[in-house]
C-alpha cells in the first residue's frame, strides 16, 4: 500500500514536471519574443532586444528552464508581459471561478451519472432505454452548443437565469449560485453521460457475479444486494471514470468559461495565448496540470483504499 502511494505520487510529480518542460519548450518555439509583447507596438528593435536580454531570453534553454523552475518552486511564476501583474496572484484570483465550475460539474455529473446508471441497471426496461438515449446524446452533443441552447431556453426565452457573467460568492451567494447553474450544467451533461454508461455497465457486471447467488442463498434482501454489494463492487470503476472525467471537465471548462464570460483560468489562458504572454501561459498551464494531477491522485488513493486487494497488499 505504502509502496503504491509512493509510486503514484512519483508519477504525479513526473507528470507535472513533463508538462512544465513541454510548455516551456512550446513558449520558446513560438516566433514572438517576450520583448515584442512587453515593449508593445511602436517599440524599437533595441528596446525589444534590451528587454529580452534583461530577462535572459538569449541564455541556453536549460539555464532558463532551471531559473523558471527555481522561482516557480518558491511561488514566483513571473509577471505578465501585457499588464505587469504577478502571474500567481492573477491565477489565485481566477482560481475560484474555474474551481467552482470544474468541481461543480464533477459533482453534478457524478451524482447524475451514478443515479442514472444505477437506475438503468436496476430497473431495466423503459428506464434503461431512456438512460441509453441520454448517454448517447450526452456523449455526442458538444458542450458549447448545448450551452448556447441552454442560454436560449433559460436566459433568452425565460429569464430564469443570467445568460453570462460571474458573481463572486463573497458578493452574493445566491448570485454566485445562479451565475454557475448554466455553465455547470453545460459542462456536466457530457460527463454525466459517460459516468452513467460506466455505472450501468459496472453494476450489471457485478450483478452477474456468482457471489450474488451466495448472498441470495443466505437471504440477503434484494435492495441490499443491489445498493450495498453490487454498488460497492461497481464503485471502483465508477471512481476511476470520475477521475478521467475530471481531467476532461477541467480542460472543457476553458470553452465553457469563454461561452459564459466567466473570468476564470480558461479565459485567462485563452487571452494569454492570443497575446503571446509567455509567463502567463506557462504559469497557468502548469498550475492547471497541478490541480488535475492532485485531484486525480486523491481519487486514485480513494480507489486503492476502496479495493481490498490493493489495501491489504
Amino acid at each position, binding site marked *: 500500500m505504502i509502496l*503504491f502511494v509512493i509510486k503514484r505520487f512519483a*508519477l504525479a510529480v*513526473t*507528470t507535472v514536471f513533463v508538462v512544465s518542460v*513541454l*510548455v516551456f519548450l*512550446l513558449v520558446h*518555439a513560438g516566433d514572438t519574443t517576450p520583448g515584442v509583447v512587453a515593449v508593445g507596438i511602436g517599440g524599437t528593435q533595441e528596446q525589444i532586444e534590451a528587454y529580452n536580454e534583461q530577462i535572459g531570453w538569449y541564455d541556453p534553454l536549460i539555464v532558463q528552464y532551471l531559473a523558471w523552475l527555481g522561482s516557480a518552486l518558491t511561488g514566483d511564476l513571473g509577471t505578465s508581459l501585457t499588464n505587469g501583474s504577478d502571474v500567481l496572484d492573477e491565477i489565485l484570483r481566477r482560481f475560484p471561478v474555474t474551481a467552482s465550475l470544474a468541481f461543480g460539474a464533477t459533482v453534478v455529473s457524478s451524482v447524475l451519472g451514478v443515479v442514472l446508471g444505477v437506475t438503468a*441497471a436496476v*430497473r*431495466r426496461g423503459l428506464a434503461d432505454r431512456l438512460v441509453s438515449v441520454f448517454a*448517447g*446524446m450526452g*456523449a*455526442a452533443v*458538444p*458542450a*458549447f*452548443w448545448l450551452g*448556447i*441552447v441552454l442560454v*436560449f431556453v433559460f436566459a433568452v426565452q425565460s429569464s430564469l437565469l443570467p445568460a453570462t457573467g460571474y458573481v463572486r460568492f463573497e458578493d452574493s451567494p445566491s448570485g454566485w449560485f445562479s451565475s454557475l447553474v448554466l455553465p455547470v450544467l453545460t459542462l456536466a451533461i457530457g460527463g454525466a453521460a459517460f459516468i452513467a454508461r*460506466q455505472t450501468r*455497465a459496472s453494476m*450489471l*457486471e457485478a*450483478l*452477474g*457475479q*456468482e*457471489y450474488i*447467488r*451466495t*448472498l*441470495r*442463498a*443466505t*437471504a440477503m434482501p434484494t435492495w441490499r444486494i*443491489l445498493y450495498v*454489494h453490487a454498488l*460497492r*463492487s461497481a464503485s471502483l470503476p465508477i471512481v*476511476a*471514470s470520475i477521475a*478521467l472525467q475530471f*481531467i*476532461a471537465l477541467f480542460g472543457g471548462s*476553458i470553452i465553457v468559461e469563454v*461561452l459564459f464570460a466567466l473570468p476564470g483560468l480558461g479565459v485567462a489562458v*485563452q487571452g*494569454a*495565448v492570443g497575446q503571446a504572454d509567455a509567463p502567463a*501561459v506557462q504559469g497557468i*498551464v502548469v498550475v*492547471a496540470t497541478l490541480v488535475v494531477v492532485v485531484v*486525480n491522485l486523491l481519487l*486514485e488513493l480513494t*480507489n486503492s483504499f476502496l479495493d*481490498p486487494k490493493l489495501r*491489504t497488499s
Partner: protein
Amino acid sequence: MSDTAAFPTRSSQRASRRPLQAPQALRTLLRSPLGMLGLAWLVVIVVASLTAPLWLPYPIEYQDFSAVLAGPSAAHLLGTDELGRDVLSRIFAAGAGSLITTFLAAVVAIGVALPLALIAAASSARIETIINRVTEIAMSIPALVIIIAVIGAVGTNLYLVMTCLGLLIAGGIYRVFVGQAKSLQSQLYVDAAEVDGLRPAMVSIRHILPNMATTIFVQFVLVFAIGLMLQAGLAFIGFGPQPPEPSWGGLIQSASKQIYVHPWLMVPTGLVLVFTVLGANAVADTLAGGQGAPPSQVALGPEARRRRRELKAAAPVAVESAPEGMLIVKGLTIGVDDGPELVSSVSFEVAPGTVLGVVGESGCGKTLTALSLVGLLPPGVNPREGSIRWGARDLARLDESGLAAIRGREIGFVGQEPMRALDPMFTIGYQLAGAVRRLRGVGKADARAEAASLLGKVGIVDAERVLRSYPHQISGGMAQRVAIALALAGRPKLLIADEPTTALDVTVQAEILSLLRGLVAETGMSMVMVTHDFGVVADICDEVVVMYAGQVIESGTVHDVLGAAEHPYTTALLAADPHAGLGVVGQERLASIPGQVPQPRDWPTGCRFADRCAFAQPQCVVPVPLIARDRGDGGVRCVRVHELQLGRLDDPVPLDAATPVDGGADPTAPTTAAAPARNGKVRS
C-alpha cells in the same frame, strides 16, 4: 502488487472481453439498424463534404442581401447567416477541412498506440512498465490546455494541432490495445507460431494484428468523434481556421451571436455536428458488440414483475404437504421464459438425514435442478410444471419473499466455485456474521462469536484470522469451507451442494467430502449432492438419480445403481470410469461416451440418448417412460431395459468383449455395456 494503474478505464475493461472477429463484426453492423444509420450518415457527410466544390449551390462568400438571417427556403435550404450567406454551402465547405484534420488525429493516435501496444505485449515486463508509465502521464494531462499552449506556439495550424491531439489521446487508446494484444499474445496459436521460429515482430503482424482489426477500427471511429468535437470547440473559442474560412465550430460561434434575433442559425450546424458524432459512436458501439455483461443473478425490473404477475395469475395447485424435513420433487419441468425446456419432468425424494446424488454430464440440467430447490434459478428461467414440496409449501410456486424466508434458514446452498462465491469487497467476518445475524436474528457480538464457532465446525483452525481476511487472502479449499459455513449459518435442514469439490485440488476434494459427510452425520440434515463424479456418489450418497438431457434416466440406491446399472448411459459412464464404485475420490472423471449431450432445442421426442446409445433400435424413437428397475427400487428410462438386462452382468466392465456398433445400424445389438466405452476418453 501489480504494476497496472489503479484505474481501469471503461475502454480497457471493454477490451478485456473477447472482441468480435472482423467478418462477424461486419455482419453485426449490417444487421443493426442504428449502426447502419450511423454509417450511412457518416458516408453522406464525408462524400458530400469532400465533393462540396462540385455541387454547392452558392460560393461560400456569396452574399444574398435579399435574404439576411433568413430561415429555410427553396433558395436557401438551411437559411442564411447575418451576411446573407447560404448556410448549407458554408457547412459543407467547412466539412472537408474538419474531417480531414480529424482523420489525421485518429491516424496519429492509432499509429502511435498500436505499435506501442504490440511492443509492450511482446517484450519484457520492464519495457511494458516503461510504456505504461509514459502513457499514464499522457492520460493524466488535460489535453485541451496543452493544445491551447501548442496553438500559442505554432498558431492555428490545424494539421499540427490535430497531430498533437492524436499524440495526447494515444495514451488512452494504448490501454485498450495493450489489454487485447496481451491476451492474444498468450493464446496458444501464437505460442505455436513462436515455436515455428517466427520473429516476435512477425508474430505480431501476422497473428495478432488481424485479430485486432475490429478493435482498431472501433477506436479509430471513437477518436474521430472526440477529435471532431474538440476541434469544433477550439474553433468556437477562436482557435480554429481564421475567418473568412468557415469551420463548424466557427459557424456555431457566429450563430451564437445571433441567438437573440435568429436562433434558427444554431440548428443546422449544430445538428450536423451532433449527428456526425452520434453516427460515429453508433458505428463504434455496434462493432464493439454492445456490453457483454454476464446475465444478472437477480431478477430485475420487467423480469421480476413478470414473474410476480405469473405467480399471481397461476391457478393455485393443491399440493399435499410433505412430511417434516422431507423434500419431494414431482414432475418438475424448468424452462426459459418463451424459450426451450431445460429440465423435463424430474421427480425424486430426499428423506431427512439422507444424501441424494444427482449425476450427469455437463448440460444435463443437474445444476438447474439443484438451483430450483432453493429458488436460485437465474432470472428468466423458471419452473413450468410440477412441484417441489417442502413442508406445506411448494417451492416451484413460491414468490421471492416466500423463498427468501426459506433460503439459508431451511435450505442452504453451496456452489461450485468457492473463490467466486464470496464477495471480494467484504471481509469473511462481515459476510459470515452478517448471514448469522440475518438468519438467526441474533445481535452483533453473538453473531461474531457464532461465526467463529461455525468456522471451527468446518475445520478452520485459526478462525479469528480468517474472519479478518478478505476472500483473496485465503486458499480455494479454505474458501469452500467458508462457503459451507455460510450455508450452515441458518442451521438448514437440507443442504444443496452443486459440485462442491469440482474446482478444488484432489487432496482438498477428499477433505471437503469428509467434512460434508461428517456434517450430515452430526447435524442430521439431508443433502442433495450434484456431481459428475461417481466416486463422490459412492463416497457420500445414499440414493442417486442419473440425469441426461434434462431427464432422470435412472434412479435408485447407490448400491443398486453403481453395482448393477441398468440404463445404457449409466453403464457406459461407469464403464468409462474404472474406479467408480470403489469410492476412490479424485480425478476428473465422468466419463465418456462418444458424442455430446444434445442441446435442449434438439431434444428428440423419443429416447434422448438414442444418438449415442450402442443399443439404439427403431423402437427407441417413441417417448420413453421411467420404468421400474429390474432389481431394487427406482426407475430406468429405457424401453429395452428388460430385454438388455445390463444390470445382471456380473462384471460390467469387460474391456475386450463385444463388438462396437454404430448407433443402431446393426440389427443384432450387442449385449454388453463395454462397447460404448471404447472410443472416448474421460471428460465431462
